[in-house]
């Protein structure tokens, strides 16, 4: 990037005055948030500095197996976090891993095969992180919706079973609602791109010196990959999870 605009340490120090404004505001308004503000600003700085060095270190490894290993660790961690939202669902940990892994793998493979990304740590780890976290958030929403629906609409499910429906037929409306809940935020956010918000990635690229018409190409890629991953992960997670609400006799479990 020929117009790359680097931020100096002094620049950042001056920018920290923004935190002082927040502190002053909290102090004058007696919000008692000063301690939290200081801790959050320090934590964000320390965590990001560490992450910067870790990424620098990771990007120095060129072997594709290493990249694959990092992606798998990210998927494992994401599925662990998503599974927390689905406590009470049978095999939720394994389901989350399969949903995230399949969704992210298909999306990343298409991006690599279409020539947009290269399979190296420098590109796969940050983009993989975006894809995997998108899948994680989506299936977390799906789980919460499913748990709520199977509780609040248990009578509807039992009526359908009593009419001779299979567990899939009895759960179909709940499944559709849960999948929609997982995908809807990504669809809504895609609709307002460029109108309500300029997303962080695109803003970052513009600030770093990339012309806006080039930056939008990356944002379009991110939008497409988010839609693909959230929909695939939501679909897989919901279709694998709903059966866990029933026993082998096709009865709704408490």
């Amino acid at each position: 990037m020929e117009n790359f605009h680097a931020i100096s340490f002094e620049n950042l120090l001056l920018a920290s005055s923004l935190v002082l404004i927040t502190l002053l505001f909290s102090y004058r308004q007696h919000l008692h948030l000063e301690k939290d503000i200081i801790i959050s600003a320090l934590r964000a700085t320390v965590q990001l500095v560490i992450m910067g060095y870790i990424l620098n270190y990771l990007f120095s490894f060129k072997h594709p197996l290493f990249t694959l290993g990092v992606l798998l660790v990210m998927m494992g961690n994401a599925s662990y976090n998503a599974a927390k939202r689905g406590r009470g669902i049978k095999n939720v940990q394994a389901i989350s891993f399969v949903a995230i892994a399949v969704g992210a793998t298909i999306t990343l493979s298409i991006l690599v095969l279409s020539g947009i990304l290269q399979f190296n740590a420098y590109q796969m780890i940050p983009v993989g992180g975006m894809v995997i976290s998108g899948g994680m958030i989506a299936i977390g929403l799906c789980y919460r919706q499913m748990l709520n629906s199977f509780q609040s609409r248990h009578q509807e499910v039992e009526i359908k079973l009593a009419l001779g429906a299979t567990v899939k037929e009895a759960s179909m409306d709940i499944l559709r609602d849960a999948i929609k809940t997982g995908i809807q935020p990504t669809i809504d956010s895609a609709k307002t791109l460029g109108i309500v918000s300029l997303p962080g990635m695109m803003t970052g690229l513009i600030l770093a010196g990339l012309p806006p018409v080039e930056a939008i190409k990356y944002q379009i890629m991110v939008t497409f990959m988010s839609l693909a991953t959230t929909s695939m992960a939501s679909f897989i997670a919901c279709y694998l999870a709903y059966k866990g609400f029933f026993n082998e006799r096709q009865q709704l479990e408490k």
Partner: protein
Amino acid sequence: MAYLEFDHVSFVDGPIKVLHDISLTIDKGEFISIVGPSGSGKSTFLKLCSDLISHTEGTIMFDGKKIEDYEPCEYRGRVGYCFQEAYLFGETVEDNIKFPYIIKNKDIDMERVTKLFDLFHMSLEYLHKKNTALSGGEKQRICLIRSLLFEPEVLLVDEVTSALDQENTLLVESVLEHLHKQHGMTILMVTHNEEQSRRHVNRRITIESGHVAKWEEF
């Protein structure tokens, strides 16, 4: 020959033994009422009959076979269940009437639908009504129609008239009597209403504290 047979059946829900050692036989074409105080296990008994829950001890036989040897969807197609709360799903009455046909991959049989709507004194215009626009009595009649579309061999009804006015109650009772007398349908009806529990029925079972306390023939 016994059509539905309970042999030393118990049902335990966590630490609570809801039904204890129930043994009884029901013949084909019987109309039986089930009475008893709230919480005595009447609805649990019906749910066991409908295979929406499984007994924890004993044996339940239906038409010569153990209940667990039936494929659940096949069994529930033969034994219909109408719940106490008149719950309609989807948006309209049509959603509820179409569902049993959709799950059987069949086209809606308008002749059958018309017959049942007539039986319950309802016009076909109700099909297009929103669920929210229906009264409690209308909802319960739609629930019964929904359970009867494929004419189950056994109909389980759980206090379906408890929230209805007298007119609707008498209408539902007359339909149940018609199904029993004209179609030979086996009916098990849970009720709190003493008079209703004697009308039209052959036998009455009283369940108290999870036991069959009394059998009466009429």
